[in-house]
């Protein structure tokens, strides 16, 4: 190993341009892949307040269609009735909360004061039981308060500071979209990467609130549930699927029926960019597409690195001849080239990982798809960077190495010893 390191050091000193370009190209490739992996990671890896992502199921969509003409259809989130029919009292569910799927971009101010914009989420009291927010002042509203749709609000620290100034904040009144609320609790800012848990303001809702219900069982509700340890998601889905017959019975009068699309969905499906309420999500295709993108992203630098390695090796042909003369086998030449290149790739990869960490810490908000999340760009390093990310970065180094080194290594090993020795 020491000898290989010496060889690499010698190469870097004697072919500095090629060596450093190789080094930084590797670093940038690994960094790029890491950014993409992190973009995927934040969509499914658990982190506070969405610490239960691995047991989380979301039932947020309903698709209804005309029984006779399927071109007449409609889809959206659920009405309070549909939410209750589909998700109340499901076996295997530990906790469930109903909330408004879509947030409102709301004006918030102190009464008579200047307003600022913030994202408002209507949620029942159980919402705070599912997601582990950090309460820094006051309390959450209770089930009774939520059921009574009392004008109470839980707000984030930044909103509290922006709107109310210095603490204490609880007990003070704020105006959200022309309606007055009393602040009962203040939570630490929520990362905008927590797609379901995120909001700047929370106000009560409950299934008794039918204001947002529309025709055909469509409305504004979504259900978020934490499945009990050890319970398979399919067990939940089977029960939900069976309940579609109840929806169909309710819709029959209007000549419509509900179309089941394999819900409720786990975090990975929900975070998929191509999730539509009237289409069954195809995670396999999405994953395949991701793999193709990764492969292309790897292949492009691999081809460049391969040509650079070839160039580096062409200056070492005589050395290869010497090694062959003294008993080095073809396999050993291939292994040596790949190992040497792997060390360079790993060193470059380490720089890429460090760059990725710095990037993650600095620009975590960039991983967010939602442009109008206002205050939540707090870094969630745990979700962006974990052993899986580092493991994949290492794997990327390995694949990059194999892609880029295989051909030059084979070329180097296939040289006849006598030709290699006599090379200029």
């Amino acid at each position, binding site marked *: 190993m020491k000898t290989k390191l*010496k*060889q690499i050091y010698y190469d870097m000193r004697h072919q500095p341009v090629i060596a450093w370009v190789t080094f930084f190209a590797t670093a940038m490739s690994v960094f790029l892949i890491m950014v993409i992996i992190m973009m995927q990671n934040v969509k499914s890896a658990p982190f506070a307040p969405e610490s239960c992502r691995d047991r989380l199921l979301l039932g947020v969509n309903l698709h209804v269609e005309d029984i006779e003409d399927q071109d007449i259809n409609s889809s959206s989130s659920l009405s309070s009735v549909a939410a209750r029919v589909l998700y109340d009292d499901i076996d295997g569910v530990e906790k469930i909360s109903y909330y408004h799927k879509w947030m409102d971009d709301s004006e918030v101010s102190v009464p008579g004061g200047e307003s600022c914009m913030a994202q408002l989420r209507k949620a029942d009291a159980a919402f705070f039981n599912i997601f582990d927010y950090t309460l820094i002042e006051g309390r959450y509203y209770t089930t009774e308060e939520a059921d009574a749709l009392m004008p109470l609000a839980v707000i984030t620290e930044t909103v509290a500071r922006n709107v109310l100034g210095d603490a204490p904040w609880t007990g003070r009144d704020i105006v959200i979209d022309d309606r007055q609320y009393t602040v009962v609790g203040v939570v630490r800012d929520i990362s905008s990467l927590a797609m379901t848990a995120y909001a700047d303001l929370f106000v009560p809702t409950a299934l008794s609130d039918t204001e947002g219900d529309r025709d055909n069982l469509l409305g504004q509700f979504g259900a978020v549930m934490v499945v009990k340890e050890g319970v398979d998601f399919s067990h939940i889905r089977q029960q939900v699927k069976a309940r579609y017959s109840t929806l169909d019975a309710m819709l029959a009068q209007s000549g419509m029926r509900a179309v089941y699309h394999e819900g409720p969905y786990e975090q990975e499906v929900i975070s998929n960019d191509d999730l539509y309420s009237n289409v069954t999500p195809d995670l396999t295709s999405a994953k395949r597409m991701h793999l193709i993108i990764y492969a292309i992203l790897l292949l492009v630098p691999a081809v460049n690195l391969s040509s650079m390695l070839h160039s580096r090796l062409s200056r070492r042909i005589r*050395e290869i001849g*010497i090694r062959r*003369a*003294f*008993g080095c*086998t*073809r396999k050993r030449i291939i292994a040596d080239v790949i190992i040497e290149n792997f060390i360079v790739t790993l060193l470059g990869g380490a720089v890429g990982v460090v760059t990725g960490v710095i990037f993650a810490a600095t620009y975590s908000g960039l991983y967010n798809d939602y442009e109008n999340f206002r205050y939540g760009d707090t870094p969630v390093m745990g979700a962006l960077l974990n052993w899986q990310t580092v493991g994949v970065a290492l794997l990327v180094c390995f694949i990059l190495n194999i892609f880029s080194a295989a051909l030059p290594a084979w070329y180097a090993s296939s040289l006849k010893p006598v030709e290699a020795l006599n090379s200029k």
Partner: protein
Amino acid sequence: MSIIKLSEINKVYQTKEIETIALDHVNIDVKRGEFVSIMGPSGCGKSTLLNIIGLLDRPNGGKVTLLDHTFDKSSDTELSQFRNANIGFVFQSFHLIPALDVAANVELPLVYRTGLSARKRREKVEEVLQRLNMTHRMHHMPSELSGGQCQRVAIARAIVGSPSIILADEPTGNLDSRMGAEVMNILHTLNKENGTTIVMVTHNESQARDTDRIIRFFDGRVIS
């Protein structure tokens, strides 16, 4: 008893337009412990012959027998292993690996030998360098050595694995006469003290005369 036996060896270099006969039905016998010189004008096939004896190149026809082994059907790996165990090379231009220090250069053949620990390898390297008075240069890079010192390192590398055969291709060709004489002394000592068989290509008549036998080459043929 023959340690090297070449029977009817042919070597032809074929390009699109020209066919060059480098070796033409060459027959050579070298006995164990013999120090043989090969002489002849440039381009007569001396180095080609040495490459074929050293299993660095394959003949187009004929049979090579080294230490009672034949190699007609040997794989590349088998040839490599045989070279590693039995043959040491000394080249005119030393062929040291510039990225490695003296010790690592000398260690090279041992690296490709299985079952030798790093410590054992290091001991052997030190032993050989001591014998060639090069211990003080052990951690120097080749670029920091004189030509004579480079060739001594190359000889150390050639003998560190205790091969039965050393093939030297104009080992003094790049050295001044004093250094050349020093290198020749080392080779003679190896031959006498260790009984190592040496086949040396040279243009130097006086050095050749000091060896046991001179094989003269012309146009790919042995003429005497």
